[in-house]
């Protein structure tokens, strides 16, 4: 009986957004007479944080505090069109649309402020705390609230903006596959350390160490949510999950969460993450989108670490204890491959 340690790595990139029918998103931004803003969308928050990501992008673009912005989404009567929340498109596509709408609204706001301060709008800036001031002369200022009141009740201006982001669809060449699939990519490299029980085929992931490049992290805590939870899902895909455990045989499909196995709270491991930010030139503040790619490097890294531990290649997902055990038996026993990358 033996447990063998193994270490494996994988590196990946991931396309942000999709190439179908163009990939448009729209956003509307408007202020109430108190200078408080509402972003109106039809994007979906599935937990990935769409509402908060777009809220921060809007606040940053408008130059107002986060508390002065709320996002209202997914009422088809009021929210303008959006393709949907998938393909890692939310931060990039919807974020760009929101930035565009907020920019337009900010333009009106600055014009209204300029009229109140009797200066040129180009000479004004926001302080991010709810005030607009003359560049270089912070005392010549007016609050966003006063601007909004003036715009509504004196100037007859709507502090509002519309935004759309569209990457025109790119035809795929039937002969060569030539196309512009997306505009930017996120990147990752992940190291998995694990242990394989050579008598039962059971794999225990002990640690993950990773570097993710995601463009600008719009909200670092939400990036962490995605990366930690996504890597868990990657581990789950690698070792546990499928509704067809004997694919292509369709029998024995799981009917509940007892039979559809996923790592439990006792199966998780420490994950040491570094985030790199190479801003996407066409992303909102350089944002890309970590939502999907976070899981992807875990699957091959785990498979490679199993090889490192016991010398067997399981090229079929999920890598169940049964597959590992069968491979070890076929090989005549575990053959540890030594430690790549030195001590662990």
């Amino acid at each position, binding site marked *: *009986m033996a*447990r063998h340690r193994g270490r494996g790595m994988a590196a990946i990139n991931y396309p942000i957004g999709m190439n179908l029918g163009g990939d448009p998103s729209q956003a509307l931004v408007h202020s109430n007479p108190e200078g408080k803003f509402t972003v109106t969308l039809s994007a979906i928050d599935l937990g990935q944080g769409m509402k908060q990501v777009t809220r921060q992008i809007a606040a940053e673009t408008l130059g107002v505090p986060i508390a002065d912005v709320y996002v209202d989404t997914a009422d088809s009567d009021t929210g303008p069109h959006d393709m949907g929340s998938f393909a890692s498109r939310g931060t990039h596509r919807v974020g760009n649309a929101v930035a565009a709408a907020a920019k337009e609204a900010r333009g009106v706001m600055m014009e209204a402020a300029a009229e109140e301060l009797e200066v040129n709008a180009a000479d004004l800036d926001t302080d991010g705390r709810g005030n607009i001031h003359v560049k270089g002369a912070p005392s010549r200022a007016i609050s966003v609230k006063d601007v909004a009141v003036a715009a509504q009740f004196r100037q007859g201006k709507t502090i509002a903006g519309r935004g759309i982001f569209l990457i025109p669809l790119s035809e795929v060449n039937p002969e060569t596959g030539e196309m512009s699939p997306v505009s930017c990519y996120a990147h990752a490299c992940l190291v998995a350390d694990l242990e394989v*029980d050579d*008598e*039962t*085929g059971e794999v225990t992931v002990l640690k993950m160490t990773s570097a993710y490049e995601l463009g600008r992290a719009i909200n670092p805590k939400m990036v962490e949510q995605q990366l930690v939870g996504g890597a868990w899902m990657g581990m789950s895909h690698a070792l*546990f999950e499928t509704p067809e*455990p*004997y694919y292509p045989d369709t*029998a*024995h*499909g*799981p009917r509940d969460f*007892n*039979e*559809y*196995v*996923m*790592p*439990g*709270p*006792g*199966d998780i491991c420490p994950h040491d993450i570094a985030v790199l930010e190479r801003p996407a030139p066409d992303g909102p503040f350089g944002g890309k989108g970590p939502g999907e790619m976070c899981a992807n490097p875990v699957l091959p890294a785990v498979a490679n670490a199993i090889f490192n531990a016991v010398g067997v290649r399981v090229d079929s997902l999920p890598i169940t*204890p*049964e597959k590992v*055990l069968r491979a070890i038996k076929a090989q005549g026993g575990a053959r540890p491959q030594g430690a790549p990358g030195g001590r662990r």
Partner: protein
Amino acid sequence: MALTVKTFGSMSEAAAALASDRTARFISGGTLLMRAINEGDTSIGTLVRSTDTGYRQIRSDPSRVEIGAGARMVDILANRDLAFLHPAARIVGGPAVRAMATVGGNLFAGSPYGDFTTALLALDATVSIQAAYGGAQQMPLEQFLQSRDRSSGLVTAVTVSRPASPDAFRFRKVSRVKPKGVSVLSIAAHLPATGGRLSNARVAYGAMAPTPIRARAVERALEGRSLDAAGIAPALAAAAEGTTPATDALASAWYRREVLPVHLRRVLLGETG
């Protein structure tokens, strides 16, 4: 379609109600029956309940323990006198399931559930059954399990022998998910020894057949042997004898048979992992 719930103060009344209605089922913790109802099982027309307090009681004496069929896993875990059963009770579901699931219900849970029953089987349990009309009867658990789907009457209690010593009783459940998962297999073993030699060992398996089963061949192979690598070798060789494990979403029959001797060895030698 319309369900009727009937509540009785005594088990004998409940047993009579159960016998008089083909669509009646006795509901205890509800973890099996309520799921079936939620999923549209239309064969259930009546739910029979009992508020009989005796149904939940645990009575112990120095050699035997009688556990009311309505005792829940948390009741077992709260009872210090039943420490030998705690490992088997603790692996039933999560905390909420353990606050609902009863010992009686576990007897009816099909593979890959019902691992508490595996432990009861290794402890030489007998089942007390209240007949529809008339008195109570006792039946060895092993015999009960063979006929449980056809059983009439109402299970009121389970009685088990105390293990010879705390170390003489071992229980292991193998799951894919930690800390809570259903059974790839489970093993319970009562290993009384005198002078380092085993005698009358009882070994039971869960998820190695449609119901928990006794591993008779293993028990025979352990008779008079010592608990060391050489002593248990014949038992390991006979580990899979009599098993008919299923292939399901968790594991194949091949895998269950293949790792059974490994886990049996780990149980017998007290290895971790």
